[in-house]
């Protein structure tokens, strides 16, 4: 079946692939030079930051490129050039032999059709199975992707399934025709960490069972480390490094890869020391620019020499199946991106700045069957139920939890953007009004917020200066000229040129926009800055820079932060104290050091074991949470976590709300669990 001279294991070879799009806003050189090979029974991880062309590569193999485009280079499938295939052969190849799994499972499934028939349809169409056989095979497929109750799950509609289950259905559908090549484009990006972990386990398991090659595209180094056998790193449309996974993470041979690795928070070493993150300065060589005869990474590279700007490097052999697009790959070593300094968050024993007691927020109200009459049928969403926490001055409170745990509700009630239903919020001992409109100027000035989506947090129609200048005038009371001068200083403080003041937000990259949002939060004299997923939408290299800015500001001004993130790695890195939320309840809270080591709440434990770590040798913990966060419309009779708890001890969990136990080494450390602390410690060690 293969031609002479071809490795029998080689499935797909991509040679010097280049893709150009012609769009209303100009020509986009999405992929410039990508060459790689996918073997059978192997996962090739394709990793890179946003806009580097990794998804375009995946779509080019499928032939699914949108809009007006041009593809150059060759793609060989089992040694045959697909350019030589006829249209019908190509369709057959792509329909039966290659399957794809997309980022958002909800959009892949027909919302008006039960999921079973959707899979059966594929089987009937492509393999010509009769209905009975197709149904049988569907059940087998559902079983093989680890869906509970495979017999009956096919009768459900997509909206009746959680995101993780939907993604399993999509994977089952992709496996339906027994494909040779499975392309997975960010299959876990929209999912919670706990669900992500179970899907990644499935991918690893599939690799062993199915004799297919898998192209796994992701921006997340931790995810890639967990699933990939070999990794190709992309930058500005080029594959810049390729190596077996372990080798790549141990000995990166391209400065960019080394930089990426030093941008990701690593778990603390055995001694508990954490290395400070280093960002990658500068910006990506834009896709709108033409190919040049130089290294595209040279402007940001600490190793760059004259040669790098005069000549484009090719892929150089760095031994042991390791290739790097760098002239100086021998010089790439640890510490290239700045000295590895031990990182210790400032720990001061200070007084409480913000104190929340019994904070409660329900969305909506009881709905009755006949508008104003009749029985109460639909309860409100219990987003936050009696949450207590303290933020100490000059310290960072990290808030972590899955989606639907109430993290954002905390930020918005504290900010006064949505009024709380009940509970006390005191800033410097003074009561804060529930709505921001009713708060005094002093309180508004003391509490600023950085939002998740940098693009949405700046008005797209107004220049960058607008928000900052208005903040200075409204909150600090500066005059027009003074505030413009101060705004320029603020921009400089976050590492942007003051010339950016007159630009529109759309002309800035996501990272630059988030810096502007930071400058806006730093305008005035905030005592507390609420960072709601402030770095989640940023690429890792930019994320490290933003974290560094936040840290610098804290050290200089003594500002406190509430840092909200779903990414436990980042929260661990920035926080002095941590609040673990689940379904609107506090599961555990206390100093960061005590919360993230045993004894800990079973939920914290599950989060920790699910968090992807950029290290292929990391011991994959086996604790996985089944199911999804419960709907918050019901009041929990017993423990809020009882439905998913892997350490549930019995009926008591379903009947009695858990008591708060004080942790072993700090009085501030509280765990809400029926299991005594000593027992937890024993179980977890």
């Amino acid at each position: 079946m293969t031609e002479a001279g071809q490795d029998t294991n080689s499935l797909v070879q991509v040679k010097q692939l280049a893709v150009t799009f012609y769009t209303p806003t100009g020509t986009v050189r999405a992929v410039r030079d990508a060459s790689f090979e996918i073997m059978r029974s192997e996962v090739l991880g394709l990793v890179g930051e946003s806009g580097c062309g990794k998804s375009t590569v995946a779509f080019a193999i499928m032939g699914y490129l949108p809009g007006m485009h041009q593809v150059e280079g060759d793609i060989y499938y089992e040694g045959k050039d697909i350019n030589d295939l006829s249209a019908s052969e190509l369709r057959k190849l792509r329909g039966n032999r290659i399957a794809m799994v997309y980022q958002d499972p909800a959009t892949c499934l027909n919302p008006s059709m039960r999921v079973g028939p959707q899979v059966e349809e594929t089987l009937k169409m492509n393999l010509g199975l009769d209905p009975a056989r197709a149904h049988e095979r569907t059940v087998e497929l559902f079983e093989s992707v680890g869906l509970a109750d495979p017999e009956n799950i096919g009768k459900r509609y997509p909206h009746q399934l959680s995101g993780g289950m939907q993604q399993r259905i999509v994977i089952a559908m992709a496996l339906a025709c027994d494909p040779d090549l499975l392309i997975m484009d960010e299959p876990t990006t929209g999912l919670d960490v706990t669900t992500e972990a179970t899907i990644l386990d499935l991918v690893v398991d599939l690799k062993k069972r199915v004799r297919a090659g898998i192209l796994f595209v992701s921006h997340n180094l931790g995810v890639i480390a967990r699933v990939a056998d070999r990794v190709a790193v992309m930058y500005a449309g080029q594959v810049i490094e390729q190596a077996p996974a372990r080798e790549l993470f141990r000995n990166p041979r391209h400065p960019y890869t080394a930089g990426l690795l030093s941008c990701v928070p690593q778990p603390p070493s055995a001694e508990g020391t954490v290395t400070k993150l280093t960002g990658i300065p500068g910006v990506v060589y834009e896709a709108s620019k033409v190919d040049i005869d130089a290294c595209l990474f040279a402007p940001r590279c600490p190793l760059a020499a004259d040669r790098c700007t005069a000549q484009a490097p090719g892929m150089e052999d760095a031994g042991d199946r390791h290739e790097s697009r760098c002239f100086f790959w021998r010089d790439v070593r640890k510490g290239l991106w700045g000295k590895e300094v031990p990182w210790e968050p400032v720990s001061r024993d200070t007084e409480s700045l913000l104190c929340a007691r019994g904070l409660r927020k329900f969305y909506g109200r009881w709905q009755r069957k006949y508008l104003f009459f009749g029985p109460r049928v639909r309860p409100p969403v219990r987003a936050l139920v009696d949450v207590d926490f303290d933020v100490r001055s000059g310290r960072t409170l990290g808030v972590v939890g899955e989606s639907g745990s109430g993290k954002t509700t905390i930020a918005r009630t504290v900010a006064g953007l949505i009024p709380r239903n009940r509970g006390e919020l005191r800033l410097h001992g003074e009561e804060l009004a529930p709505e921001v409109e009713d708060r005094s100027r002093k309180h508004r000035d003391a509490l600023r917020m950085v939002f998740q989506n940098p693009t949405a947090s700046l008005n797209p129609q107004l220049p960058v200066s607008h928000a900052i200048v208005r903040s200075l005038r409204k909150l600090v009371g500066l005059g027009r000229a003074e505030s413009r001068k101060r705004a320029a200083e603020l921009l400089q403080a976050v590492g942007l040129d003051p010339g950016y003041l007159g630009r529109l937000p759309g002309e800035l990259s996501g990272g630059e926009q988030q810096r502007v949002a930071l400058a806006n939060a730093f305008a005035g004299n905030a005592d507390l800055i609420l960072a709601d997923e402030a770095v989640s939408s940023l690429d890792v290299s930019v994320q490290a820079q933003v974290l560094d800015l936040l840290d610098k500001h804290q050290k200089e001004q003594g500002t406190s932060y509430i840092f909200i993130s779903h990414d436990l790695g980042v929260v661990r890195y920035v926080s002095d104290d941590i609040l673990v939320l689940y379904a609107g309840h506090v599961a555990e809270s206390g100093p960061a050091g005590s919360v993230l080591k045993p004894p800990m709440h079973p939920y914290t434990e599950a989060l920790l074991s699910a968090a992807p770590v950029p290290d292929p040798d990391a011991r994959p913990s086996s604790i996985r949470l089944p199911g999804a966060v419960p709907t918050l419309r019901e009041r929990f009779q017993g423990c809020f976590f009882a439905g998913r708890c892997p350490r549930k001890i019995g009926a008591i969990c379903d009947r009695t709300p858990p008591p708060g136990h004080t942790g072993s080494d700090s009085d501030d450390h509280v765990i809400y669990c029926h299991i005594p602390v000593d027992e937890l410690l024993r179980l977890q060690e």
Partner: protein
Amino acid sequence: MANQDRLELGPPQPADSGVMASQAVTGTARTGLLRTTNARATAALGSLLGQFRLALRTPAGRIGLPLVLLHLIIALAGPWLAPYAPTAFVGSQLEPPSWQFLMGTDQFGRDILSRVMSGAGSIIAVSVAGAALGIALGTLVGMASGYKGGRTDEVVMRVMDGLMSFPSLLMALLVLTSLGANAANIVLTIGVVFTAPVSRVMRSITLSLKTQEFVQSARMRGEPVPYIIFREILPNTLPVLAVEGSVRLSYAILLASSLGFLGLGVQPPSPDWGLMISESRRFIVVAPWVALAPAVAVATLIVGVNLLTDGIRQARTLPREGTQV
């Protein structure tokens, strides 16, 4: 300064886009940052011209733009370009089209072409003013109601629903017969009739924009509500507003000529397209040309405005000019 830039333009712009541009200009004039204001006014103007250039790249725009421009030229210069005075009895009654009277004459022997050309100005002025008033009122009501939300929004929108459930022509008739038919009242009527549909559109976009983080951020700065609505939200509704404006304009032309048809427009002997069609009904069998010219005029104007809007909308999805494929 900004206004000078606009005046130097020379050829008249379609009135609806003119409304948009002047809104943008007055909006920025208040910031007091003179240099940026000027730059942005020029940019707004440039983008307006750019929109037309864009539109010319689609078939719809290539037909729509000349049609609209033709109507505008006739509206502005019609009375001077027309071969005869609109109210002069220059020929015999109901003469068929000939070289002397290109579109024939009407029941009084007046030149139909001249009457159509002279009538263009009033109908375009009335419908542009009416549409603009409707857009302004609808924007105000819709955005305020949408931003406030809750019970106020509920009440305001139910009132608007009530207004909308009334056929627009019937409502216009009601207002005009009670207030008296003159140009100002027609504009007012069109404005009131259009408030409800425009406010719906503006409310829905305000609802989605008000949850955006930049609005939340303005709330946290303590900006007053009118500032948030007009300075933060309004500029972001401009694309929707532009589409809504052109849709409303073509409806306004239709409504204005319907009112003329019913005898509630410009009073005779001044030329009015709707009235001309209405009067021609009696001779439609013997002299169809009497109805033809004004009917074609109304139709081409509405079709032109619609095609131009479609053209601009389509052109946004095309690759940039001059790209080599």
